[in-house]
């Protein structure tokens, strides 16, 4: 019982010593880390020169779902339903203002004719993805700072920092996030960040057979997106939330939520 009876002064001394000894490897480690990272940003890509965005032409989308399929292949998204970085919704507006929205397997396997009793008023497809908000609510709620917005306007997740708490999933008004079943961290569309910094377009834009998706820079320069935004009447999803999305829709029906 002698051991347990240490003096307070002794205890405090030992505490100081142990804290200091624990911390020294940490300090060294941090020093090492900074030496390792030679950032892509230093190899010629300047995020300040860009502000990425996407345009979607509703009246061109044929609902083939090749975008959702390509996204899964490019980004190794699990091929199970419920896990999507991008997906296609079908809106069916019936007589009497009844609205049916469906998205069987996100559109990856295409759509089958929807059987309904009421008369069809109109119907169309709406591709969806992370809106890459200028004021992202998901970034604000992350308790560990694992989700962040880059200079070029893309919201990303640091999967090493993410603790999988799901706050961001709750906060996202567009349902764009999910927890990856293998890593148990939050995931979402990155605008194919690994492609766009190398001058390629996102996979979903590349495979769209009718060019319903348009990708480019919103920053001043002549890009397909700037042209798209000048030529069309643009709407964003849930504008009243002031998230300021950078996914712009042309020909979007008022029924789309």
């Amino acid at each position, binding site marked *: 019982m002698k051991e347990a009876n240490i003096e307070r002064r002794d205890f*405090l001394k030992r*505490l*100081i010593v142990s*804290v*200091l000894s*624990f*911390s020294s490897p*940490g*300090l060294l*480690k*941090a*020093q090492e*880390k*900074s030496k*390792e*990272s030679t*950032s*892509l*940003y230093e190899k010629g890509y300047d*995020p300040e020169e860009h502000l990425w965005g996407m345009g979607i032409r509703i*009246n*061109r*989308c*044929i*609902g*083939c*779902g*090749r975008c959702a399929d*390509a996204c899964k*292949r*490019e*980004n190794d998204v699990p091929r199970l339903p419920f896990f999507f970085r991008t997906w296609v919704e079908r809106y*069916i507006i019936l007589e009497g203002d009844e609205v049916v929205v469906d998205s069987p397997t996100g559109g990856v396997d*295409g*759509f089958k*004719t*929807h059987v309904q009793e009421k008369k*069809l008023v109109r*119907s*169309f497809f709406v591709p969806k993805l992370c809106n890459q908000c200028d004021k992202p609510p998901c970034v604000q709620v992350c308790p560990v*700072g694992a989700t*962040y917005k*880059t*200079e070029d306007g893309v919201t*990303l997740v*640091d999967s*090493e*920092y993410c603790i999988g708490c799901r706050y961001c999933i709750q906060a996202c008004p567009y349902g764009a996030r999910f927890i990856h079943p293998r890593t148990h961290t939050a995931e979402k569309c990155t605008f194919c*960040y*690994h*492609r766009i*910094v*190398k001058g*390629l377009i996102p*996979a979903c834009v*590349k*495979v769209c*057979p*009718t*060019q319903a998706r348009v990708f480019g820079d919103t920053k001043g320069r002549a890009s397909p997106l700037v042209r798209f935004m000048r030529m069309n009447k643009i709407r964003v999803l849930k504008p009243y939330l002031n998230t300021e999305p950078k996914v712009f829709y042309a020909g979007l029906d008022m029924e789309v939520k």
Partner: protein
Amino acid sequence: MKDISFLAKWAKKFWKKVPDQVVRLSIPILILIIGFIVMRNLLVPSDFGKYGHFRAAAIDELVSQEIQYSEHEMCFECHDDVVKAKNMSYHRGVECEVCHGPAAAHIEDPEGNQLPAPRERGYCPLCHEYLPSRPTGFPQIVSESHNPFRACVSCHDAHDPKPPTVPKECEACHAEIARTKALSHHVYISCIRCHKTPKEHNIRPRAHRPEKPSTREFCGECHDEKAPSAKGVPRVNMETHGERYVCWQCHYPHLPEAH
């Protein structure tokens, strides 16, 4: 020298004045502060905040992700015939990798990473099956009744799809209009009387469009009171009859009805 000793004396005096409980309390607070600084150093990597409120290395981790879908131009090197044919065809907007899947690995090593070709009948309907939700004008079929049981590619070249034999009659592609007209007062007026049609329209209908009447005077060629047309043709006064509109805003030209 004098100054310093004076200062030290002053500090000693001040220290004695500090109540004992404050001194004791300040020790754990000091430890906490040191602990916080140390932990922050330990947990927050030094590249944090370099480009924004995040770890700079996180960007590199993301960017190092492998690219699956290559650039379209890459195929030309080895499959120039296919690329050339496709770029002229209806499928010019459909990327090779839509049908053949991601091909970055194939370009690196064609023999080692062979690409599948979607020859089965179920594939093309992903885009071409009739769905009311699809935009009008997109070519669609009902696969149940469109030449069932045979592979699509046995009639259509996937890289240059078109109706396999070029039809001569307008009816082949405009069956509904032709049927309608056949029951109308205009039954004996041939399509090309009203639509000057280039020959190429039958091969690439969307690239070579026929003309459509654009003025009231066109209908007047037969229906004007003074027109030199056959006696039986009903006449109207072009000045007053529906003057503000073109005729087909009221009469469907393929099924004109007056009563």
